């Protein structure tokens, strides 16, 4: 068979033999080892490996992208919420800036400029309907914030109307959109807006532009008017030319005029402005602090401001502290009151009960898996169907069935009373407690234990045990020293599966767990769907994830993940 064309020594080109020969030759030359085509062997190998890797990657790419997009990214996004806190600085930008250097331990209330910032921020937030959202957020940290923000939002007009009314009394023009637009707006923008209004088109309005220089004369009023005008254009789709500005703009104008000198101002509406400037000195006014305290006295409590300051940063550790039964205080993190600590207890209980459930699954599942693997195929198949049957039944149905079985007027208690084992008055309490959860969850998770055990056990040759016995081992010794060690990988796989499933369960504990048999996941579900405190839910979820990963790591160190087999 070794003619000229197939003899390895005769073939030219990049074959393994030629490569070795070339390498040997290269060795003799003391240069780098070369592949058959003359490139260094190392690079050549790396290239062919890279191509293989790329091909493998391409093959799994659809799955990888799917998992990344639909699983990892949403989870990452959710977990990120556990530290995210931009809502405070976004809703109250001026307040948080001004509050930054307030000393919460001094016992004094913040200065007037903080109240001024708060008034502006709240007014704008109220127009955007964002203040109540912030109130809900802060209410997680301090009781009463929710109604404080809602009430304040409703009553801000009480303060701004003081100025609005006085400007109006002075000159009706202050009550109209047009004079304001001329005072504040860029003439070019006014022309464009007029053209747009006349055309009555759908579509985007020409974006409002401040007139050059007006910001230097009236800084506060210009910036608030700009906010108002853009808001009117985008949210309400009204032309700022026809819209009377918010009372906030009048308020800002009052403070500008009190400070600024507009005698030399000669732009549009100069007469109107100068007349107002002459009059504002006699205006009735309240400070922002007085105004806000009038609206709600909680603005005069340092506690409110401490909370606001503490939660001003864009990222917060507050949710995580809360998740480990601690809270932020002015002197750093501190434990919560004993009667509010719950998460530590729930984490412990979740871990403990998951371990108990895993252990009872092993105890119940091992004999079944052994039986399955030793019975003849016909009966084993029948038994297998029985094991798989629960998978075809809804989880809720299986859990509710346990209610019927275990409750005090339930099947088991009835049988026991009928047999005379327990008195009618002292029926056993087997549900709405830990016992109920353990029983129901063991039943539900049992197949996840049996299946990996079975697949490992069915690969253990029966001849090994026979050999052990023929060498004089008793039944027990043969099982203990020969059979059991070989079935351990199945136990390991089943345990990991059951334990990790158990730790995240919440439907079953919710239905049969009562108060002592609920898991941490029940609280997570509560915070996601009822209290809407997604930040806290995310923090609790992150901790749970870390706990599971640590346990997995410990398991790998102790048992070794290579000793886990799901089959053959």
């Amino acid at each position: 068979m070794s003619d000229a064309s197939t003899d390895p020594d005769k073939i030219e080109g990049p074959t393994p033999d030629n490569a070795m020969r070339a390498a040997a030759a290269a060795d003799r030359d003391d240069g780098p080892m070369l592949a058959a085509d003359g490139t260094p062997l190392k690079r050549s190998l790396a290239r062919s490996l890279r191509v293989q890797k790329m091909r493998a990657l391409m093959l799994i790419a659809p799955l990888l992208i799917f998992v990344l997009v639909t699983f990892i990214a949403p989870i990452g996004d959710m977990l990120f919420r556990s530290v995210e806190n931009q809502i405070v600085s976004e809703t109250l930008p001026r307040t948080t800036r001004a509050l930054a250097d307030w000393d919460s331990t001094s016992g004094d209330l913040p200065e007037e400029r903080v109240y001024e910032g708060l008034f502006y921020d709240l007014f704008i937030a109220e127009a955007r309907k964002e203040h109540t959202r912030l109130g809900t957020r802060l209410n997680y940290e301090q009781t009463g914030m929710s109604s404080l923000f809602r009430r304040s939002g409703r009553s801000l007009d009480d303060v701004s109307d003081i100025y609005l009314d006085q400007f109006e009394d002075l000159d009706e023009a202050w009550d109209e959109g047009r004079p304001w637009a001329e005072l504040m707006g860029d003439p070019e923008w006014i022309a464009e807006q007029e053209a747009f209004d006349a055309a009555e088109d759908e579509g985007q309005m020409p974006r409002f532009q401040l007139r050059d220089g007006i910001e230097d004369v009236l800084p506060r009023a210009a910036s608030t008017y700009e906010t108002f005008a853009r808001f009117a254009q985008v949210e309400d789709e009204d032309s700022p030319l026809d819209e009377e500005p918010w009372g906030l703009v009048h308020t800002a104008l009052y403070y500008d005029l009190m400070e600024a000198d507009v005698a030399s101002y000669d732009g549009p509406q100069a007469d109107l402005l100068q007349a107002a400037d002459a009059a504002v000195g006699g205006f009735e006014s309240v400070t922002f602090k007085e105004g806000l305290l009038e609206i709600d006295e909680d603005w005069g409590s340092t506690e409110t401001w401490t909370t606001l300051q503490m939660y001003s940063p864009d990222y917060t550790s507050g949710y995580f502290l809360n998740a480990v039964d601690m809270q932020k205080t002015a002197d750093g993190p501190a434990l919560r009151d004993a009667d509010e600590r719950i998460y530590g207890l729930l984490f412990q209980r979740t871990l403990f009960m998951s371990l108990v459930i895993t252990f009872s699954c092993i105890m119940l599942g091992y004999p079944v898996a052994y039986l399955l693997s030793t019975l003849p195929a016909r009966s084993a198949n029948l038994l297998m169907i029985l094991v798989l049957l629960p998978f075809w039944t809804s989880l809720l149905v299986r859990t509710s069935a346990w209610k019927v079985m275990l409750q005090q007027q339930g099947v088991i208690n009835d049988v026991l009373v009928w047999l005379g084992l327990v008195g009618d008055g002292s029926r056993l309490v087997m549900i709405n407690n830990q016992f109920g959860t353990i029983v129901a969850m063991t039943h539900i998770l049992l197949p996840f234990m049996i299946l990996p055990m079975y697949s490992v056990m069915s690969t253990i040759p029966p001849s090994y045990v026979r050999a052990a016995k023929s060498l004089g081992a008793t039944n027990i010794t043969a099982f203990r020293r020969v059979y059991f060690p070989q079935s351990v990988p199945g136990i390991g796989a089943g345990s990991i599966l059951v334990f990790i499933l158990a730790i995240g369960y919440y439907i079953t504990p919710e239905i049969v767990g009562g108060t002592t048999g609920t898991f941490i996941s029940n609280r997570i579900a509560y915070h996601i769907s009822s209290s809407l405190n997604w930040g806290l839910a995310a923090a609790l979820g992150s901790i749970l994830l870390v706990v599971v990963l640590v346990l997995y790591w410990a398991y790998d160190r102790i048992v070794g993940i290579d000793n886990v087999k799901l089959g053959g």
Partner: protein
Amino acid sequence: MKFSKTLMATTALTVAAAGTVYAAAHAEMADSMTLVSWGGAYQASQQKAYVEPYLENNSDVSISWDESSAEAVAKLRAMNEAGNVTWDLVDVVAADAIRLCDEGLAMEIDHDESLAAAPDGTEASDDFGDLIVSDCFIPQIVYSTTFGYRTDMVPEGAEAPNDICDVWDLETYPGKRALEKRPINNMEWALLCDGVAKEEVYDVLATEEGQDQALAKLGEIKDEVIWWSAGADTPQLLADGEIFMGSTYNGRLFSVIEEQDQPVGMMWDAQVFDLDGWIVPADLPEDRLARVMDFLSFATDTQRLADQAKYISYGPARESSAPLVGQHAELGIEMAPHMPTDPNNAQNTFLYNYEFWADYRDDIDAKFQAWLAQ
């Protein structure tokens, strides 16, 4: 979006081709709508009282239900963040409506403009009156959370329980109780039975001592309580004889007593009124919004609200509907005496304090859950 536009266009064309004037007025309305409700008998009553009559006049509309009201706030928030709100009209309890309004997830409604006036011309906002607890909320029904008890388990010689404090009287009325697994209502009842005057309950509950006092009072019966989280739990527990008495929604008890004929009695004392109604999700596209508002105006008129009471024992939210409440559609019994608002039943009542619980919910719930877990 494109698909639904094509669908809309096709429908409009078909209807126009049929030569009806109708099409002109309705062309800009979407032809399908997703309503969200609670499922069960309540949703069925809405289907019969609102949806079926509406479809008789608008046969080209298809209406589908989503039974998600219990998680409506969380789901709406998620939909809003994902930028794809698939619901058109959502049935929620008033407290959730307030929260949705606070979060900017529900649309503010001008009640007089959007809703039909009463037959005598009373404006909608006056007809609903104080029940409009939020600008986003369109009330439908008044329901109450109250107690039911097993009539056959009342000890011999004892009167049937008729006082909220009988819940705490384990000597006269032994047996388990079912209470909801949340502080709302339970805390109020506990204080009431611990000697706090009705008017002062919320002032007391706002203090740490008051909260501890309420928990201590609940502690007296803690061992005898099964805590429920779904409205169907208590009726089931009562029917099984698992508990002696338990709190739940009055409509559920009506169904156990009258429809399923169980030996269960109603205790109306200190019932807590609450409201349930519609909200419209914020930022709906125009065609869908037009359809929803058309339906809404129909479904909340005086007659429709009164009709709903034929199927379930919840009181209509309009004052003008009350005199129209008639007999049960199948059982033929008068519904008025089964309404929580009936004068005989409403001798001692509470109204869910929305403002208080919006503030204290997070705080008291943390305490309550910690107390439960101990």
